[in-house]
């Protein structure tokens, strides 16, 4: 009886993981940015989740529960490889960056697909310069389409802090991409960074 029960639970658990394994792996890979480390984190996270599966409440959000375990493992991995000596809430107190304090993107917003195509691999490099919190929040939102609430649960932080990480992550990413684009001549050198011009002023100039 006991063996049978364990097998059923194991199958259910593996079915649950299999459903999301690609998106979990993608999130891990883009957070630790190393195939070998990503493989280790994936294995460790799944095994840790399996061992603590009694803590999962049937009917609650399995995906968000897994992201919480995975995000913790990613933090540990990033600390171990000394990429970033940070804790999950270390940069939580930083300020929200409002949209009009973010880099002026008016020269590239006309054709963002083309711009992102032109900056190519720089997107990855720019992403690696974000803190783990910013990268996690941005990935969970933009790639995995989690809601603010789900991201807050996964990262164990308040929703307001999620918004701060998102705004700061986006601002940094844009700065990095624009810097690169200016150096490569993809956009006009006259383009201002962290502009506080109003939209109407920009439109009038252009």
């Amino acid at each position, binding site marked *: *009886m*006991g*063996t049978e029960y*364990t*097998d059923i*639970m*194991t199958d*259910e*658990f*593996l*079915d*649950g*993981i*299999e*459903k999301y394994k*690609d998106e*979990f*792996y*993608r999130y891990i*890979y883009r957070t630790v940015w190393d195939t070998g480390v990503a*493989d280790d984190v*994936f*294995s460790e996270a*799944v*095994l840790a989740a*399996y*061992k603590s599966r009694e803590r999962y409440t*049937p*009917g609650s*959000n*399995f995906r*968000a529960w897994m992201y919480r375990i995975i995000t913790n493992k990613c933090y540990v991995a990033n600390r171990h490889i000394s990429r970033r000596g940070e804790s999950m809430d270390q940069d939580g107190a930083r300020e*929200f960056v*409002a*949209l*009009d*304090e973010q880099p002026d993107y*008016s020269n*590239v*917003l006309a054709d*963002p*697909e083309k*711009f*992102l195509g032109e900056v190519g691999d720089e997107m990855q490099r720019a992403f690696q310069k974000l803190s783990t919190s910013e990268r996690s929040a*941005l*990935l969970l*939102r*933009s*790639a*995995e*389409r989690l809601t*603010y*609430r*789900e991201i807050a649960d996964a990262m164990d932080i308040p929703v307001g802090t999620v*918004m701060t990480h*998102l705004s700061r992550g986006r601002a940094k990413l844009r700065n990095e991409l624009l810097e690169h684009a200016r150096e490569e001549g993809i956009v006009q050198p006259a383009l201002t960074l962290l502009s*506080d011009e*109003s*939209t*109407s002023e920009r439109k009038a100039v252009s």
Partner: protein
Amino acid sequence: MKGNIDHLWQAYLDGEMSACEASEFEATLTPDQRVRIADELTFETACQTRLGEPIACPDALWTSVKADIRAEAAHNTTVIPFIKRRSVWAPVAAAAAAVVILLAVQTGSSLELMTPPDSVPTTLATGNTLASVNQFLKDSAITLSVSDPTDNGHPIQFIGARNTLLSNTHVKELYYNCCGQPVRMVVAKKGSAAAENFGRIENADSVQATRNVGAYTVALLSTHSAANLLNVFAAN
């Protein structure tokens, strides 16, 4: 303009507002702000596409992880006989464990049972018409009927219904397509273990809304905001 762009802009861009909140927010925007926010949406969509490009979990890794989990499961099951030989409490513990396991199995709780549907089951007991679902409910001795859902700007289509078990209780599942997203409704007898299960997890993300209708409790599950769809039971 500075100072006006804040958390609200970000929440709007990230789709965190309800349709009503978004309309109210849009009404506050100046023409210039509308241009800016449309540009930002275009850029964010392009970023999402880049970041969302698929990266598959390597097959070898998944096979290895599954093997590790199976080994862990096997290891756990072999511990019990060892304890049994060593402790006088083991028979009591084993009996208690058996009762717990039996109860758990009979409860029938499943990892994904009350999660929103990612897709619709391939085997349904009805066709995709209103008449067929009402006939299905009648044949199942359910004293409820459903009406055509109101399309409040949300295109809705009935897909089908089926019988299933939840918390060892027979329940009916109704599947809809709302704005291209699957929506599941579960009909359980009021006071049944399944209906109590709805209440217990109502605040979790999986159950969007519940409603008592006559002798039944109905729950709506979807990742898409569709709580008003429970109005199909309004005539009961």
